[in-house]
């Protein structure tokens, strides 16, 4: 299925190979159309195809493997993750990631206890700061895992966020 | 085993058996008219609660379930649910009457 690598121009040759391989795959039409962009022709730019396969995975390792082609992920304190200890509401959990690393090209956020592990993944082009904030949904108490791709290497950090229902129930 | 133990056990079995039978019997014997009487009592109690503006959601749920069970001709279940609804309604009426006086104690003074 679509194994699209989110990498810097440095690995463009590999990118082009993937793109060509991808073109051959039947599902291209659906993915291309679904994303409403004409993504793949511009091989020079990072590919724009939504990593459908990665978003379909149900555990951390499979999601990362699908997203980054079997990365070796090293926990690192260079990646800082700002999440609440107890989520005020599992539907809107504020998450901020900052990476004190050079040449960051992608930041991915995973929630292992969610039905689908990969929550979001952002491409960081050259010149964009390696820091993002967003709001995620968490089905229940779980780690929030941030994985940063920099110079083709992978660094991660994780923190647990407690999630429980509010109020005294119906 | 000592005779007394056997006797006790036997008595217990009989007792349990009897109540189960009675329960089952009452389920079959509850005729439509008995259900309707219980249902009427429950709705009257609920109207009292409504007048006191203090109805409970489980009462409404039990009344609804009772009506549904009755519609399905399952008068045994319908009867139990109607009785449950009446008990809940009575409790909510009681709560309203009590709170009519007790609320003053909670007021920040």
């Amino acid at each position, binding site marked *: 299925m679509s194994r699209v690598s989110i990498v810097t121009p440095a690995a463009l040759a590999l990118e082009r190979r993937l793109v060509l391989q991808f073109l051959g795959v039947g599902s291209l039409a659906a993915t291309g159309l679904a994303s409403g962009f004409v993504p793949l022709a511009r091989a020079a730019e990072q590919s724009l195809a939504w990593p459908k396969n990665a978003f379909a995975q149900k555990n951390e390792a499979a999601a990362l493997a699908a997203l980054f082609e079997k990365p070796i992920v090293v926990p690192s304190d260079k990646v800082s993750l700002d999440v*609440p*200890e*107890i*989520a*005020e*509401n*599992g*539907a*809107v*959990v*504020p998450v*901020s990631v900052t990476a004190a690393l050079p040449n960051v090209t992608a930041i991915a956020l995973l929630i292992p206890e969610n039905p689908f592990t990969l929550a979001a993944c952002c491409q960081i082009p050259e010149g964009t700061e390696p820091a993002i*904030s967003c*709001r995620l949904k968490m089905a229940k108490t779980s780690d929030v895992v941030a994985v940063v791709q920099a110079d083709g290497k992978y660094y991660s950090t994780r923190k647990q966020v407690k*999630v*429980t*229902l*509010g*109020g*005294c*129930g*119906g | 085993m000592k005779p007394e133990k056997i006797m006790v056990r036997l008595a217990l079995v009989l007792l349990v058996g009897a109540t189960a039978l009675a329960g089952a019997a009452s389920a079959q014997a509850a005729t439509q008219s008995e259900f309707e009487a219980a249902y009427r009592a429950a709705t009257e109690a609920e109207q009292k609660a409504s007048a006191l*503006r*203090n*109805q*409970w*959601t*489980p*009462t*409404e749920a039990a009344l609804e379930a009772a009506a549904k069970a009755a519609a399905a001709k399952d008068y045994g279940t319908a009867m139990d649910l109607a009785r449950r609804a009446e008990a*809940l309604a009575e*409790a*909510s009426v009681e*709560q309203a009457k009590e*709170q009519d006086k*007790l*609320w*003053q104690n*909670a*007021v*920040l*003074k």
Partner: protein
Amino acid sequence: MKVAIATIGRRAAACLVLLLALVLPPASAEQRIDPAADQRAFQAYFRQAFPSVALNDFANGPYAVDKDMRKQWEEIMQFPPYDFALEDGKKLFETPFKNGKTYADCFPQKGIGIRQNYPYFDRQTGEVVTLDLAINRCREQNGETPLPYQVGDMAAIDAYMASTSRGKPFAIALPADPRAFAAYEKGKKFFYERRGQLNFSCASCHVQAAGKRLRGDILAPALGILASFPIYRSDWGSMGTVDRRFISCNDQVRSVAFKPEDELYRDLEYFLSYMSNGVAIAGPGTRP
């Protein structure tokens, strides 16, 4: 015989006393009900319970009394989810009715910067009028259909009108009118009265357990609890008015809720708003 007469005499005297007690008018409603004293005691309780919380910060409910919750709130407030409703509300507020009039023609000061005075006691109709009721009455006077309560356009218009009052302290008036005092007292009773199968009152959570955790929630203190309405609750994923909150609270304690803008809800809002006089309006707000 003498004994019998004596007992009859004593019994007659007792009846007489009883009769007198009934005949004499009970202390008139005003003396017994002292809203100003209630307000002082109410505010004093919360200022002592949360000494580090400034008066206006009580408008921020759980975020005024829990650091971790406040941090999440501050992040969400950078771009609050009610932004869309607020913008819709402004457009709706300014869109003329079919007869060319707009809400501005119904409200004092064209409806701008007045939210802090609602609800008020209407001496003509002898009832508590909330902002939502006034909005729908304005629509009906101009030949428009009333808006559904609790959500949607009503919540959006509330959001805009509240935003024009931000920073203005609640200034709820209690006219010297026995009907106003009666409405106030009914609201007060509703607030302290236990209800539902769970047998809780508003006070059980928002007075006795204010600042404590109820599963995922931190219970907001009752002081200033309406100052940030209407609120966008993550739980609802949309805006909600005071009615929506009262109804959802009643459901939670398994009490059958009333219709929105029911007299008792309006009286409750009147009591709660009057208790919060002095707390600045901070609506629209976001909540868990």
